[in-house]
């Protein structure tokens, strides 16, 4: 039986996978400068999905890093960030659509450039959502991994860093989770050349519980209790 899987996604691509409770997903910024937009859904009830505001306010944080949990809109934990060598991922800037991407990097479609086209995160999410019967109405604010975005006292947003060569983040899943992701540019990317940093992806199936680092906050202990209550319902 396969217990692990490793691959590399080029920039401007998309992917989805159901992660089982206890398994781990490791993202690696192979060359430096990667961006990963990610959304989560409950595969047993696709109406339950990642909620960025709940995630941020439950942990009184604007940045996401090791020790933080990523919450559904039902008060449950999809996964915890078990390890993170980058230190700052953001969850409010969303994803660029085709027009915004063309405005920043120029338009380049499949007919012109084949798979080097300037693919956008919005269409990437739509493609993956459609595979599960979901659509535009189901798209929420995503996480953008490897994007450090700060707000100053006046609330002005500034993207300070995008990725770092070799940076790694590992997610440990606390319930079965449908993961959708794209490797398209971050919304606050300055214009110019379309970013081409690839993403390393590793899935480890061996089961481990949510690590201690994710359970230091009382809020996350309560979130995990909500997961346990959900498990009590048994298999649907």
């Amino acid at each position, binding site marked *: 039986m396969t217990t692990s899987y490793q691959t590399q996604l080029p920039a401007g691509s998309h992917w989805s996978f159901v992660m089982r409770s206890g398994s781990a997903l490791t993202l690696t910024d192979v060359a430096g400068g990667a961006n990963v937009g990610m959304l989560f859904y409950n595969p047993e009830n696709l*109406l339950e999905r990642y*909620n*960025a*505001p*709940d995630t*941020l*306010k*439950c942990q*009184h*944080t*604007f*940045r996401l890093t090791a020790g933080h949990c990523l*919450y559904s*809109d*039902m*008060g*449950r934990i999809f996964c915890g960030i078990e390890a993170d060598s980058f230190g*700052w991922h953001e969850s*409010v*800037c*969303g*994803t660029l*659509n085709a*027009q*915004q991407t063309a405005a920043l990097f120029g338009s380049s479609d499949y007919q012109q450039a084949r798979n080097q086209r300037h693919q956008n995160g919005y269409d990437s999410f739509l493609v993956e959502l459609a595979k599960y019967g979901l*659509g*535009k*109405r*189901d*798209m*929420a*604010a995503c996480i953008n991994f490897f994007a450090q975005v*700060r*707000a*100053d*006292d*006046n*609330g*002005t*947003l*500034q993207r300070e860093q995008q990725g770092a060569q070799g940076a790694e983040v590992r997610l440990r899943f606390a319930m079965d989770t449908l993961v959708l992701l794209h490797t398209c540019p971050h*919304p*606050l990317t300055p214009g110019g050349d379309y970013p081409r940093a690839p993403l390393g992806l590793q899935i480890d199936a061996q089961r481990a519980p949510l690590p201690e680092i994710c359970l230091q906050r009382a*809020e*996350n202990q*309560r*979130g995990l*209790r*909500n997961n346990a209550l959900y498990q009590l319902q048994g298999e649907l």
Partner: protein
Amino acid sequence: MIKESLLNPAEAHVQQQIGAGDYWLHRIEKGQTLRITDLEGNQAADTLFFNADDTAERYSMSDTLRGQHNVFLTAGSVLRSNDDRPMLTIVADTCGRHDTLGGACATESNTVRYDLEKRHMHACRDSWMLAVAEHPEYGLTRRDITHNINFFMNVPVTHEGGLTFADGISAPGKYVELVAQMNILVLISNCPQLNNPCNGYNPTPILVSVW
């Protein structure tokens, strides 16, 4: 940014008080002006906007923040849709700052934030669920309930990346006024939150006016 309105309340077509814990679902036409008034101070009006002619298009926190490169909403802010189109513009604001990061209270997130046994307490998301259930004519469902605006709430971000729920900067009579750039469905939950010190544990009514 503090900017006062020139509109006369006596000339409004609609003037309706919404009690704490109630919702208001109403259609306004392109070009109309909506004012929300915080009657007693430090109340939160948790608000969603939809394109009334195609509800799959709705207010988007991300597109709005990206569009203005700022986390706060105030006079001059353009509220953008998930299709990155302008939906409404804030044209007057005597409060000065409104939040769109904090989301709405929900029975489920209350169990995480406060206590597992707070599940029975009334929350904004339940008001929205009742609104979509009582008004099937608009075609809204749970799928359409996404990230909202919290008018009159102050949620600053620290340099280190913390999120704080600061004391209210609103006061009795403060208001925010918006002009619709398309036909809009407005869905407000006047927040019933009894666990957050921001409102002094005393949810109070708001007034909505339409010109």
